[in-house]
């Protein structure tokens, strides 16, 4: 995805982005191996609350969705649901090589290979799995991006909704979830 470099936000949006950058609530989607790297990032050793970040209980409250590893197509439906429940502005950070190109699951029949065909990823963290230092570094980058107004994935999703929906349908056949919680 191309990041637009020209800054055409008005003053109000700049102030808003300042607040958004300094207070990031996250919801992490515990897929794959990456969820286990987050508790050390949150607790005393790395302490992400220094950056103003903290965990939230539901997607509605959160600003950033963390996809922590490979996604099976079954999980992808839930991820799309969660993402669409979040309130604008919202960001996605994807962890590990599995979300970039499939990683070691590149030829699996059950997982998707390239996450940003389905939902707009603002930032990738390379590694298998990225260590907490890498994660902290990425969050610092995310903060800079939001401050500069470059984390525009959510706008991109709105503008290219058909393209994303088409990709989702191509892989999943239908995005609607059939289980006891969603019917």
């Amino acid at each position, binding site marked *: 995805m191309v990041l637009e470099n020209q800054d055409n936000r008005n003053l109000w949006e700049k102030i808003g982005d300042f607040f958004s950058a300094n207070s990031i609530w996250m919801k992490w989607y515990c897929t794959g191996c990456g969820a286990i790297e987050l508790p050390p990032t949150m607790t005393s050793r790395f302490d992400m*609350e220094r950056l103003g970040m903290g965990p939230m209980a539901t997607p509605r409250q959160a600003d950033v969705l963390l996809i922590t590893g490979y996604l099976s197509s079954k999980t992808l439906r839930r991820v799309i649901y969660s993402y669409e429940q979040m309130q604008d502005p919202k960001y996605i950070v994807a962890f590990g090589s599995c979300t970039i190109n499939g990683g070691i699951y590149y030829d699996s029949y059950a997982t998707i290979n390239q996450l940003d065909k389905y939902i707009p990823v603002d930032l990738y963290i390379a590694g298998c799995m990225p260590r907490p230092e890498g994660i902290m570094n990425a969050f610092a980058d995310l903060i800079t991006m939001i401050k500069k107004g470059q984390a525009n994935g959510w706008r991109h999703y709105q503008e290219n909704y058909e393209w994303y929906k088409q990709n989702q349908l191509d892989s999943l056949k239908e995005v609607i979830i059939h289980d006891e919680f969603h019917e």
Partner: protein
Amino acid sequence: MTVMNFVYGFIVLLAAFIFQTALTGVNRKVTARIQKRYGPRWYQQFLDIFKALRKGSITHGWVFDFGVIMALGGIMATVIFIPVAGFEAFPNMDNVFVISYLLAVGMLGMAMSAAGSGNPWASIGVSRALTNMVAYDVPLMIVIFTLIFAFDTASVSEIAAMQQGMGVLGWNAVRMPLGGIVAFIALFGMLGKKPFDSFIAPAEIASGPMVEYGGKHLGFMFILHELMTFIEVSLILSLFFGGGSSILVYAIKYAILYTLVNIISQVMPRFKIDQAVKFFYRVPLVFAIIQGLVVIFLGWGVSVWF
């Protein structure tokens, strides 16, 4: 009642919000230090609230929206009746009953709004929150009625003024130690601090009543929570810990009381809701009744140190 009263009321409201939000931020740092972390910036709570207000928001129906407004309105109305260090925006209206009824408007608005979101977690959270309220309110109310009986007044500022001039020995918490203990424990329940925070339990019931709030609604809920904390801590401070002779003393005592509650709560586990009710009806209720009997029949701690 003149225009000036309303201006004062607004000032109290603004000051309460700024003071309590800053204090919450500082306490997040205190919490972090307890957990051997560095912690967020002290003004992080302001950033969080303004961030939430900046975001988009969706509605879950009329009841959901109206409940938020009703809760915020009720709580804001309560704040302006709270006497701060003898200063009242509306003199002679700081009756305990006025405050507790207005507070109920806010609480019910919140319950209504959360239930209006239609999420089952929210309903569980609301039912737990109201159960919790029933649990701490009975012992606390018995102690407060004891105070009203002992001092022949229900005015918060008058009860606060009567405790001043004798230093620590004048505080109701010292004159009536059992009542003081009950009030202090009830403060944990009122603030929803551990061990009585089963109604927000983020990992178990996805933050209970707050589950469907996002963006601006959540921002309003945060403001509401700060103001509610101000009301509750102020009430306990004025009734049991002597209020304050000046604004500065009041602010310092307030900060110490709130921080103490926070520190203790950080090393506590969490009660299940039935355990919390059982606890309140076993220990504080008995203390409250004994305190009431002592004051009514023996008169200890009312006019002088016996």
